[in-house]
């Protein structure tokens, strides 16, 4: 098949990588202290993508449901774990809660979209399943991470108010209701923001990708509309799941706030500290 776009060869990759020199020079000149993070992040990005390219090529060629579901589950677990890694307070079972919420939300929404909306046949066609699930996961990750962080932070900061309500006879749910609502709102903000300016300020990656691959812009935007609604629904479900599970973990059946079950994230291994430092750089850069 002759693709409708210009093939990027190995030399062209090397040329693109040279662009990172701009970052390195800036970092050294302004003493941003980002040099190490930049190099590691670049190497990781290249290695991860090349590997994923190989794996996906293999799976696309297989065209069998099990490997596709398998890689979908691996992606889901990684998204669930990453979503917890960006929060500052943890409780026992938080990783499981996060993976379960991300799994339920992403598989449900992607399944509905593939079977009921896009009508993909056969349903396990990797060309559709993997990119759609991947995009949904990438966005759920932000939503669950923000909602979880907001919930655990608010619960610890507003302990006085929560226990004030509990002491007057509030149920755990009544006492936590405002915080649950705020957490869900926080989790939805990035999605709503990006929908607001989509196409005007930002040209989404999938749409531009389709256009680069030769799709007509009018066709590309249709896919983008479908995926944005998928992302909005999945993010809401994921944020709701992770918040409700966190509520159940931190409030006992006796309507007590159990902050003793909540610990600050610390003593991470070298890998987490390392990736954490990159994320801090990213945040600082934004």
């Amino acid at each position, binding site marked *: 098949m002759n693709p409708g776009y210009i093939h990027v060869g190995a030399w062209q990759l090397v040329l693109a990588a040279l662009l990172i020199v701009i970052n390195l020079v800036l970092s050294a000149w302004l003493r941003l202290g980002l040099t190490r993070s930049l190099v590691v992040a670049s190497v990781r990005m290249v290695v991860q993508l090349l590997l994923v390219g190989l794996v996906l090529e293999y799976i696309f060629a297989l065209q069998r449901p099990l490997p596709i579901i398998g890689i979908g589950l691996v992606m889901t677990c990684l998204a669930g774990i990453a979503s917890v890694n960006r929060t500052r307070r943890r409780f026992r079972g938080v990783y499981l809660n996060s993976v379960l919420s991300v799994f339920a939300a992403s598989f449900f929404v992607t399944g509905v979209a593939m079977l009921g909306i896009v009508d993909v046949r056969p349903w396990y066609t990797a060309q559709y399943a993997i990119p759609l699930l991947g995009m949904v996961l990438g966005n759920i990750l932000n939503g669950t991470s923000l909602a979880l962080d907001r919930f655990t932070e608010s619960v610890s900061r*507003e302990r*006085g*108010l929560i*226990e*004030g*309500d*509990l*002491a*007057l*006879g*509030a*149920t755990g749910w*009544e006492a936590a209701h405002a915080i649950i609502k705020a957490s869900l709102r926080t989790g939805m903000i990035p999605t709503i923001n990006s929908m607001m300016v989509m196409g005007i300020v930002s040209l989404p990656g999938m749409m531009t990708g389709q256009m680069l691959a030769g799709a007509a812009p009018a066709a590309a935007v249709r896919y983008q509309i479908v995926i944005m609604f998928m992302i909005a629904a999945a993010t809401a479900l994921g944020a709701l799941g992770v918040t409700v599970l966190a509520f159940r973990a931190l409030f*006992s059946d*006796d*309507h*007590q*706030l159990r902050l003793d079950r909540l610990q600050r994230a610390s003593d991470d291994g070298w890998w987490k500290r390392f990736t954490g430092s990159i994320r801090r750089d990213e945040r600082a850069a934004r």
Partner: protein
Amino acid sequence: MSRRDTIAGLAAMAKAPAGALLVARDLGCTIAGRSLWNGVQLALNAGESWAITGPSGVGKTLLLRTLAGLRPADLGEIRLDGRSSEDWWMPAWRARVVYVAQRPALPEGTVEQALAAPFRLRIHRAHRFDAEAARHALGALGVDAAFLDQATTELSGGEAQLVALVRALSIEPRILLLDEPTASLDPDRTRRVEALLRAWLRTRERRACVWTGHDRAQVERVSDHVLALGRA
């Protein structure tokens, strides 16, 4: 807790008629493997006022919070009206046994909104916020009516304590657990709080109250029984 006080506690319990409102037996508290207090006995009869005394950090607040069911009792049992706390739905327990924190957190908004807030809870939905009664109670504490329109964020520590106390009284609890309720108040307001609570204990049967405090003279004034917590 010292031997003498344990005995005082036991004696009070022995005296207690079968109808003691709140009974705590052999309560113990362990924080991070360290035992704070142990073998605490308490039998709260109608009309009684107990004081819990002891040095800072001994766990007075923890004892009140345990009695309110805001934290699990590490050891022992608490009964209200003869029924173990395990058999109670905790919101119903806490509507009867109300804990007022030393530094209460009030929701954003006006004082009046803060006072009305508990009546939105399921357990109090059958009742309505009585602004007149609240104004009356605040008046008894030496606060004028304009106070109701003030923002809770602008209250002093003492004023917040008064609001929290009036809010607790408004839901008509059976037992009040007050954590140093006059810690941030001037002598005049302190006397007014004491008088209000004495009147509250008398106006209806089957009410009781537990205080914590450091002021020896106040403890003598307000309490019928003293439970002194000390390091074991």
